[in-house]
């Protein structure tokens, strides 16, 4: 046991002195070439497996504690979108129940529903995001979804809700396939993101 311990210690000491030596060499030799840089930046002896911290909105972050230093960064997909769980999507309204086809005027029953939603949701602020299915042109859908999101935001404003942002993504962020009527209906929606 003692032998194993001392071996490990001497190995790490050797590693440390090698690292110091490398530091000394690279600081003295001004023309450190790219091959040396690659060798120096790959820490073969160390494995870096960050953990995941879930923020209060439900989005993931990579975090790592390296002893005295702490590191953290947002976890993103390769498309650049945060990896989030459905924690703060507090309201998804199917737009069929709020708007007539191609209209961005909220129906009377829709207004009542939205008013009571904003009065009971109890968040600090809201971001309103409109979406459509894939019928009609992309440009038309971008405009329609934004107009619809603005109509929903105006109702929130009217009952004192703080609106953080209003956006329309048209048909670009589907949650279901546009290949079926049921899928298209799911995609026609206004999302209300709640921020505590």
């Amino acid at each position, binding site marked *: 046991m003692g032998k194993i311990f001392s071996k490990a210690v001497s190995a790490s000491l050797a590693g440390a002195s090698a690292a110091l030596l490398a530091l000394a060499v690279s600081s003295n030799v001004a023309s450190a070439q790219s091959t040396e840089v690659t060798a120096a930046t790959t820490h073969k002896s160390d494995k870096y*497996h960050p953990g995941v911290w879930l923020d209060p909105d439900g989005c993931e972050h990579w975090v790592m504690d390296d002893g005295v230093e702490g*590191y*953290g960064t947002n976890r993103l997909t390769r498309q650049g979108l945060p990896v989030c769980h459905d924690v703060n999507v507090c309201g998804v309204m199917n737009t069929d129940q709020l708007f007539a086809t191609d209209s961005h005027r909220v129906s009377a029953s829709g207004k009542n529903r939205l008013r009571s939603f904003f009065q009971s949701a109890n968040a*600090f602020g809201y971001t309103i995001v409109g979406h459509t299915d894939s019928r009609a042109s992309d440009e038309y859908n971008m405009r329609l979804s934004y107009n619809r999101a603005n109509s929903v935001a105006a109702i929130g404003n009217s009952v004192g809700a703080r609106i953080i*942002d209003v956006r329309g993504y048209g048909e670009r962020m589907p949650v279901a396939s546009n290949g079926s009527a049921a899928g298209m209906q799911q995609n026609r929606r206004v999302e209300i993101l709640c921020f505590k």
Partner: protein
Amino acid sequence: MKTIKSSVLVLAIASLSACGYGHKVDKTVDRGYDSKGLSQLKAGILVNPDGCDTWLIDDGVEGYWMNRLDRYGKPVCSGRAAPGTVVGEFKRGSDPI
């Protein structure tokens, strides 16, 4: 001059190792008096000079600072507080530094 600098560096590293701040294998846990998984970190919100929210965590020796993004990747600029101020309990480490 250079020799003095290097010996200071070596001493600094040696003293750190003596305190137990040497090689650390598991980077998903905090080390020290309040050893715990990093998933339990508590964040406050620091409003940056642009007026947008960032998650701020003080875990004792370590500090973390990460963007608050919505699910579409846009910064959340909630207007929670004035730029340059913090809201919420973020100093949950055993030894706030």
